[in-house]
């Protein structure tokens, strides 16, 4: 995967963060930030300004949809990939309507997650990695 940017990974389940972050490192992503819920994610986002956010849907404190809305207020161009478990059509539609770039089933095997992430990166970033382009709706 050709991506030299940074990724913020948001999920309340530690094992998911462990799994996805190991996968990201394996794919060559070097700068990974983690957050266990939406409100922490917003803090980290403001501080670190990551290039891409991977965002869980079901979380306590502040859920994924709410967090997505807040992220889009901070930066309307931020690239957000939703992490879902069971594909819930309604949630996915809501997220896409709010400007999410893609969604990934986190219960999929690593290569499938990697492929979906690579697709999103291809769609949303210029090949020279000079920062995010407009998300492909």
């Amino acid at each position: 995967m050709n991506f030299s940017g940074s990724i913020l990974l948001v999920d309340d389940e530690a094992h998911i963060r462990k799994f996805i972050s190991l996968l990201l490192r394996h794919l060559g992503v070097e700068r990974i930030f983690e957050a266990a819920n939406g409100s922490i994610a917003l803090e980290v986002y403001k501080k670190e300004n990551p290039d891409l956010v991977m965002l869980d849907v079901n979380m306590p404190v502040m859920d994924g949809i709410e967090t997505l809305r807040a992220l889009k207020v901070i930066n309307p161009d931020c690239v957000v990939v939703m992490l879902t478990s069971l594909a819930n059509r309604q949630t996915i539609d809501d997220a896409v309507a709010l400007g999410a770039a893609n969604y990934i089933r986190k219960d999929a095997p690593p290569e499938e997650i990697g492929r979906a992430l690579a697709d999103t990166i291809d769609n949303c970033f210029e090949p020279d990695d000079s920062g995010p382009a407009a998300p492909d709706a």
Partner: protein
Amino acid sequence: MEDPLINPSIDLKGRRILAVDDDRINLRIIGGILRNEGYEIAEAASGEQALEVYAAFQPNLVLLDVMMPGIDGFATCRTLKKAYGDKCAPVIFVTAKSEADDVVMGFDAGGVDYLTKPFRPKEVVARIRTHLSNQQLVEQQKDLVQQLSKANAAKDRFLGMCAHDLRNPLSSIRGLAELMDENAIGELTSEQREIIQTIHGASQSMLLLVNELLDVATIEAGHLKLEKAPTSIVEIVERSVHLSNIEAAKKNTRIEMVKIDTDPMVDVDRNKMRQVVDNLINNAVKYSPRGSIITVLIHSNGVVAGFAVRDSGPGIPESERHKLFKDYGRLSTEPTGGEKSTGLGLAICRKIVEAHNGTIGVDNIPGRGAEFIVSLPLYK
């Protein structure tokens, strides 16, 4: 849940009986006999009054005189049956004449039995007891069915919740093991690799089970939502054949597709139908000897179209055929490469196919193998 066994000694005391007769003396006699037995009695002197008293008293049984001024017993019975339907209390007719015509008319009107005047108290008591007991058994059975279907729905909900909550941790375990096997955290020793591969295999088969349980729970709870679109059968089958061939190659098995002149279209939920094709092909690979050839044949007769998966396994034992498409219907036949089976796959296939108004069946090919045939209404 309470023990669903029915108490065999039925206590009928306090059961409500409505006695209807225009003859006061008759009412007094029958009332006396029945009160003596511990029943609660309400009386009515005409059909019209009977309808009123019925509504207020809600009896468990009605004793209804046939010959009455105003609306007679048969008409009263028909009115009651119409008003209360299945919930109407059983009606026993009381008639002075025991002529056959009368009796037949009584049954036609919805009565369950008849008594002839003058009364023989023992007969009255025995017949009433029989009908009250029957009625009570029916009620108990209805309760029981209701309780059981509630318990079954609760079980499905529980399974669904369980499966749902197990899925994410299991996916993480599987994913982490897979990444370690790919040296994501460095080169492994051969022992470490063996252990990691064991963890991967075990979590993979648990995930499979959990996913199938979740499918069953979703379908049983009536939450199977089909996103139908006109789809080419060849396209669905081709993709599955391609993907399955990768896995089948490990057993030196090959899957071939046999097309026909046309490319039949069906109105289906692509993902669900792929699941059916995948499942049938995987089964064929699982139960066929190493190095065999599995054939997937497209079929269409202008009304229905579909596909058939032909394997070279041992076939389906006749004695176990009935279990095949049922939940947890595992057969005695074993996979040939140590693969796992939950016994849910074919049940899920059947449910998906039936939700599309299609059919799924199996035939043994004499000499070798089984052929699973799926047929769906052709899209026009």
